[in-house]
């Protein structure tokens, strides 16, 4: 698949955030290149709003999200099924997100939708301690996704663009709950350890 986050983001670096459960540590947020206000907003406005531990989505489901915190800061990423924790409890959420600093315009929005569809650049393993790096936007020019992404319906993209034109804050969450038998498992679910 060809790339997406390209010319519109040249010279930019993207912050990276991961919220999931780590063996021996439990739920932790790891991030790099992200202001503390954005990392707090990620947990409060994405993780806590989109994940209900008492009513989790079906195993194998994947979702994508995009949240504009303000005119200069946008978070976007995926919610994957993280498999089981070390206590054999299933339905561990795996929230991976990128943070884009700078104004969001129509081209960047298209780039983000394409990236969400294609999938993440890296899929950090749930192994503690974990160090993440900020990612240069040029790395998104051509990459093999580490996991399948989530495409947005045309209606969702159209709505997002019209909201952007009206100067409204974007707050999107989409995806189709699927069963594990339909969607291929992520590396950790199969016991693998791939990190692209």
């Amino acid at each position, binding site marked *: 698949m060809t790339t997406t986050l390209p010319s519109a983001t040249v010279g930019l670096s993207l912050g990276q955030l991961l919220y999931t*459960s780590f063996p021996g540590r439990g739920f932790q947020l790891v991030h790099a290149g992200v202001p503390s206000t954005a990392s707090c907003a990620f947990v409060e406005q994405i993780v806590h709003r989109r994940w209900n531990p*008492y009513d989790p989505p079906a195993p194998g489901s994947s979702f994508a999200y995009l949240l504009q915190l303000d005119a200069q800061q946008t978070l976007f990423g995926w919610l994957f099924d993280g498999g089981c924790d070390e206590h054999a409890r299933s339905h561990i959420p795996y929230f991976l997100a990128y943070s884009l600093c700078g104004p969001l315009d129509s081209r960047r929005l298209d780039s983000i939708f394409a990236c969400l569809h294609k999938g993440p650049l890296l899929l950090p393993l749930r192994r503690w301690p974990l160090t993440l790096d900020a990612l240069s936007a040029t790395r998104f020019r051509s990459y093999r996704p580490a996991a399948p992404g989530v495409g947005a319906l045309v209606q969702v993209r159209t709505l997002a663009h019209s909201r952007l034109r009206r100067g409204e804050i974007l707050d999107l969450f989409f995806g189709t709950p699927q069963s594990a038998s339909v969607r291929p498992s992520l590396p950790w679910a199969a016991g693998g350890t791939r990190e692209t």
Partner: protein
Amino acid sequence: MPVSRSTPSRKDGPAESSAAHDTFSFQLIGQRGVGKTVFLAAMGAHIEQFDEIGLKSADPQTERQLAQVLQFIRTRGIYPPATDRTIPFNFDLYRGRRRICRFRWEDLPGETCQLWDEGFNRSTKRSSGGLLFVDGHALLNDPGYRRNLDELTELLLPIVNLVKLNGLHYPLALVLTKCDLIAPLTPELKDVLRQRLSPVRRCLERHRSRYEIFYSSLALVNDGPGRPARLVVGDGQSALLWLIEEIQSRRQLPALARLSRWLGLGRRTPPGLLQQI
């Protein structure tokens, strides 16, 4: 110390707010995966069955959460997933239409049960008593579980110190979870478990803390594909009833006295009684 007392003349536990005088909060202490969520859901479902005294979910959020946990267990046939944030559960005691008092506990992620966690300290400060969860199955079968006991003891130490130094009353129910995995729970086996709990018990006894041990059995029974799973609960409510009885014995609160009478405390549910949820 996690607590600073605003009303030093009161000797009724670390509960901080007089505005919440009719709310009895119980702190949960337990490591990840010990079974706090499923215990709370089962206890909540049990006490909602006491129709004659009208103990009900106090808010739609509690009602929804309780329904969601039980629905998850029944439909998926597995225990609930890990809790990743602190989630409150509130139950109101009614007599007829009159609200008498409120019971509150918070489902805490095990990773927040730490001395340096602000939320854990805040809820300890608000509580009238506590439930300390220990994995009964691991206690019996895993020699390495001794480390977990030491960590729990370290966590308990400042709490029981505070209680002792201030002459407070803070009952602690020691709940041994996953006892269905080590059934039948014979008197001999209970003796072994009590013996292995000695690091925690020594800490409590040294500080003259009020405590009692409970054996929690929440077996998940799957009857086959397409049929909802059942949670078979052995004596699930005793820990809560004991805490109520303990608090009432010191505080002599009219609301709790009535509750004690209605629940027949002192003639507690026979141990080993099984119910299905």
